[in-house]
């Protein structure tokens, strides 16, 4: 599967990664090579084979629905680039 420049720009937008213009063409080439190489999977007949969901056959453990942690907001926001009043601060979203 060949990926063109516009596709790279579109998936970079989806992934929220700013790419400089000059990176688009080289990336289109690299991603095309990788995807072409991956294409060999299509040789395999996987009809009727269930997709693997878990490497270990165990039921997902559940615990009681109760609060077991918390009460230290300063620790939670301690690594934030910007915080205010124990909240994470972001650029204005709503005008």
């Amino acid at each position: 599967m060949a990926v063109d420049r516009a596709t790279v720009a579109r998936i970079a937008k989806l992934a929220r990664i700013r790419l400089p213009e000059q990176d688009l063409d080289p990336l289109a080439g690299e991603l095309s090579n990788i995807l072409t190489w991956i294409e060999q999977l299509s040789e395999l007949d996987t009809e009727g084979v269930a997709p693997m969901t878990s490497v270990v056959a165990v039921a997902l453990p559940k615990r009681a629905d109760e609060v077991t942690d918390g009460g230290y907001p300063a620790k939670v926001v301690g690594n934030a680039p910007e915080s205010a009043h124990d909240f994470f601060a972001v650029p204005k979203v709503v005008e």
Partner: protein
Amino acid sequence: MAGGADLTIAEARDALAKGEVSARELAGAQIAAVEAARPLNAFITETPDQALEMAEASDARRRAGEAGLLEGIPLAIKDLFCTEGVPTTAGSHILDGFTPPYESTVTANLWRNGAVMLGKTNLDEFAMGSSNTTSYHGAVESPWRRPGDNRPLVPGGSSGGSAAAVAARAAPGATGTDTGGSIRQPAAFCGIVGMKPTYGRCSRWGVVAFASSLDQPGPLTRTVRDAAIMLGAMAGHDPKDSTSVDTPVPDYEAALSGDIRGLKIGIPKEYRLDGTPPEIEALWQQGIDWLRHAGAEIRDISLPHTSYALPAYYIIAPAEASSNLARYDGVRYGLRVPGADLTEMYENTRGEGFGAEVKRRVLIGTYVLSAGYYDAYYNKARRVRSLILRDFTEAFETVDAILTPTAPSEAFAVGEKMDDPIAMYLNDVFTVPASLAGLPAISVPAGLGASGLPLGLHLIGRAFDEETLFRTAGVLEAAAGFDAVPQFVADGR
């Protein structure tokens, strides 16, 4: 070296138990060795003060008669494990300034067992790489050189700093994580032992996530015995990781009986690849002969879907990575690069914070998960993964372990294989299938290649049967008698 920095974990443990050395003295010697190894760039953060403090506390515990499994043993920690109060970078610019307010379960287990932290080791950015050249904190150099050739070599990756530190005697053991070969391949390149346990054996809680269905912590050490001791102290059920398995952790060291008589060892024909260097083929044959002479029964087996493992991996791992790495948004921790609005802030932060290989994989992952491609790529790869697991399940009906080479080449020079991502991915061709199947596997240093660099042999076992792997690896280790020393150590650093 004075003070015990050359001791293995088992030797240090015995010397500590006999009172021949204190944890404080051992930590002092090891801190000096970490400093001496600085030219390798194996550590991102050194924690000498913490090491001495922990060592003194360990000596006090020993005096009080409370010695854990790793009491007083200094260890290096891959900088992918969150360590409370010590910066954790994952080798990425995007985690600039991040200091975890919590401790990963695996490192907490190690400290509870008495281990002492020397520092945080360098790695490929977010553990994505096979050469430790993608770290924001610079490439790691292997302590090995080709005889008569002074070009720096890669230590392998992604646990390259851990492998280099252990090979250079800066630490007797180090934690690693393995997603597609990130413990085993650097262990092979650096001439040490690297063990990837069964998926679920060690908790992933507090380990920076790359591909959650594949990531698994494990030990890098200089001997099989040390790997057995260290894994025993790392492993165990953790309610904070829902994929952590609630099954008892055996005494792995007790499994090292040296007796593999009657054990059935499978040799998969699909691992004989065109273009594999003859010395790797020869070493594999040598490994077969060693095990046969020790009384094992050798059987030819087939794992028919082997060649599809690597392309399936390069769909599944990037898909999971693109999802896991969505959390790096400049809001809650790490780097923030301002933008005119929220979206632009995300894009600027991630554009600047991620390196080239991480971007490449996040973009591949985003693509294969995007509308219209999800079934063709992601679900297809998961179906192929089922077939790969089935290959192993069928093989393990007739054999107890599988022997292969660890990597298709010896270590390469810094700068080689950098232009072609796929050539780099092929480093993991022998390690990825076991990762996809969640199986335990170990690399043992077994000889030197044509240019005088270490080569590893690789054993794959049944799920949760690490004991058979350790036992067989111990036999390989004894037969190989690998005692070559990296130039960096031989030259007195």
